[in-house]
């Protein structure tokens, strides 16, 4: 039964990479088109694109540019916009002097990389372990995607509730087993781990589903060939399956990584950055700088710092995707 999922995954190898112009049929540049229609035809793609570009321009691009502009201003929340004064690089210099910014950046990087490594390891391992056509798999898959569908705010609430040292279920269990109370959210050492656990709970299934799809789209011939050569299960995984899955795994990893920098709600609800700055990721720090400390210029400078990190990762994703596509084309030839 070829599901749509299988179709899309099957078409991975020759799939065009993001945003570049592979050799594709060009139905609309046919020279046969009549002159009168030509102008219409030439403007057609722009007509189709215009609304999307308008929305993204107003809602994304312009704000980002405005944020760059704002980062050179000194403006307090609650004051009229006219009161903003140009302050040059002062916001950035002040950030560089502030140890909390370094701490927060460190927390962000630790959080993002830890969750992604854990999620990828767990997700891929589970996919390899559970790869077997059985009855009921679609039901299980449905259950596995449930955590991703729950609102981050609600995830934060659920975990904050479960982590409570006074009445949370986790410490009730820990005490029943005799471990004693765990300071989930109240100790500097534990809080980040607790936040990471919540994220791993929500997002490991994402990697799992992707790895599963990748596995199912592997060419049966390659695996058959390995078996004929006498490879055992472990060898097949290590030398055949994993290398073939690698492109998907890497893309999924980068996607998760970029999403990990978007996390805010779960931590806002669970710890609000504490204790100390142990869970104060940059996105939360931006929010607080803007709306608690009310330094809009400084918050914009911080925003640009975060944007820079994410941009670097995006470029990595882009470069990788291009390289993969070139490879794929070579294989196809």
């Amino acid at each position, binding site marked *: 039964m070829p599901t749509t999922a299988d179709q899309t995954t099957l078409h991975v190898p020759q799939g065009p990479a993001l945003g570049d112009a592979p050799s594709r049929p060009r139905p609309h540049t046919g020279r046969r088109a009549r002159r009168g229609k030509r102008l219409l035809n030439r403007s057609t793609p722009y007509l189709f694109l215009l609304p999307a570009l308008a929305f993204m321009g107003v809602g994304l691009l312009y704000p980002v540019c405005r944020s760059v502009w704002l980062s050179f201003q000194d403006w307090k929340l609650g004051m009229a916009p006219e009161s903003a004064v140009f302050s040059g690089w002062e916001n950035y210099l002040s950030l560089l002097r502030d140890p909390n910014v370094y701490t927060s950046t460190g927390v962000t990087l630790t959080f993002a990389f830890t969750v992604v490594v854990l999620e990828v390891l767990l997700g891929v391992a589970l996919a390899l372990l559970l790869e077997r056509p059985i009855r009921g798999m679609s039901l299980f898959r449905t259950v596995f995607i449930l955590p991703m569908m729950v609102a981050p705010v609600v995830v934060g609430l659920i975990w904050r509730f479960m982590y409570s040292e006074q009445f949370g279920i986790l410490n009730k269990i820990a005490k029943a087993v005799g471990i004693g109370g765990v*300071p989930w959210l109240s100790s500097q050492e534990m809080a980040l781990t607790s936040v990471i656990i919540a994220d791993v709970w929500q997002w490991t299934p994402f990697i799992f589903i992707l790895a599963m799809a990748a596995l199912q789209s592997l060419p049966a011939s390659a695996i058959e060939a390995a078996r004929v050569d006498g490879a055992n299960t472990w060898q097949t995984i290590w030398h055949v399956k994993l290398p073939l899955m690698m492109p998907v795994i890497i893309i999924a990893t980068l996607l998760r990584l970029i999403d990990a920098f978007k996390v805010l709600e779960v931590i806002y609800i669970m*710890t609000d950055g504490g204790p100390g*700055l142990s869970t104060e990721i940059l996105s939360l720090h931006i929010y607080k700088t803007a709306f608690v400390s009310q330094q809009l210029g400084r918050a914009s400078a911080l925003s640009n710092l975060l944007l820079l990190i994410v941009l670097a990762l995006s470029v990595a994703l882009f470069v990788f995707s291009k390289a993969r596509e070139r490879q794929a084309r070579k294989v196809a030839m």
Partner: protein
Amino acid sequence: MRIQKALTSVALGAAVSLLALTTALASPYDKYKGTTLVVNFPAHPHYDAVAKVLPDFTKETGIKVEVDKLQYMRMHDKQVLEMSKPQGDYDLISYVIMWKTEYVAKNLLSPLAPFFVNAALADPDYDPEDILKAYIEPVGIVGGKKGYLTGVTGALYGVPFGSETSVLGYRKDIFAKHNLKVPETYDEMMDLVCKFKDLEPGMSGLTSRGAAGHQVGHAWLLHLNPLGGTVFDDHWKPVYDSPEGIKAAQYLKKILDCGPEGGTAFGFDEMKNAFLQGKAAMYLDSVSVAGEAENPEKSKIVGKIGWAPHPKGKVKASQTGGFGIAIPANSKNKEAAFLLLQWLTSKATDKKIALAGGSPSRMSTYLDPELQKKFPYYPMFAEAFKAAAYDWRPLIAEWGELNAPTLGVALSEAMTGKKTIEQAFADIKPRVVEIMTKAGYYSWSK
């Protein structure tokens, strides 16, 4: 049941007397009948009590009130947003004491004098002198000494409504069982805090806030003041890391270490519940908990609580804090908003709110015999206000930036053992100086 009966009779009485008045003269409220006022109140026990009384206002005056209830730490952002627009959403706001200077500095509030001089609006029986001095001066007046204290250059911008001071709550039963003396000084209290773990299984010493940010900062200030410390000296030099400041932090660390589990993540709610659920022997924080503590739905320790003044350190200095109400400068219905403000803080309403479980702001309410019978701790509380420290924390416009994101983080790092107290304090010094320099506090000392 009894409260309800009392309430209805009071309300009825008020309504009848008002009716009598209206037949004689036009009511001052008539002009504003049908207006809808939008007020921004926090989720807080005092304002829960207010919610029960508020319908009476509409009944008496014909002015409708819509309440936007917000969590109080988030209320600030929303208020600043609304009040900085050309036309705001709010006609009356409840603000936390520490925001007053900032709001006035940003021209966000209406001064109250123009309303009090307007004979058509000001109630001659309002009796402002009856409002507790320890409340109205720190909460309402801006522009006096140091800018945020009272003084001849000051002016009134808000009226206390749900103000608080700190008191010591203790478990009478446990103290009696082990023959313990209720601590009157810090030395006595610090001797006690770690003892309960051994005396009573499952019980801890003193419950305290400890969550990073505002919460742990607040807990530290509770001890800093009695120990004689301040955050800044009279020339705005930061002295939070003075020996007194360090001692206060050491005390707090000991209190948290011997307190209920998870204390370093406690906000007010968790802190209070640890006491009300019987997991701590002592409580040292706002008086606002007193109503709930005797409510069997919310408390497991009904009838077992004794109240005492905040223990004395070098000095007696209990907290001054809590809420005031004020009129945003961009409100569309300022006069009607003033009438509501005046009604809410009047003698009669103050008593009604007290009966409904709120924190009164008037001496007459604390001395009311009917209320003293119902709330036996009232005389003790009335006494506690005399020791309230007006200059409990620097209520400067920059406090928001100094409090949660700076001091609150350093203290949290010290409380959880990430850094030593001295180290944590030293690390934030450059940021504190930067904030103060930028605001111009040191431009006069040059």
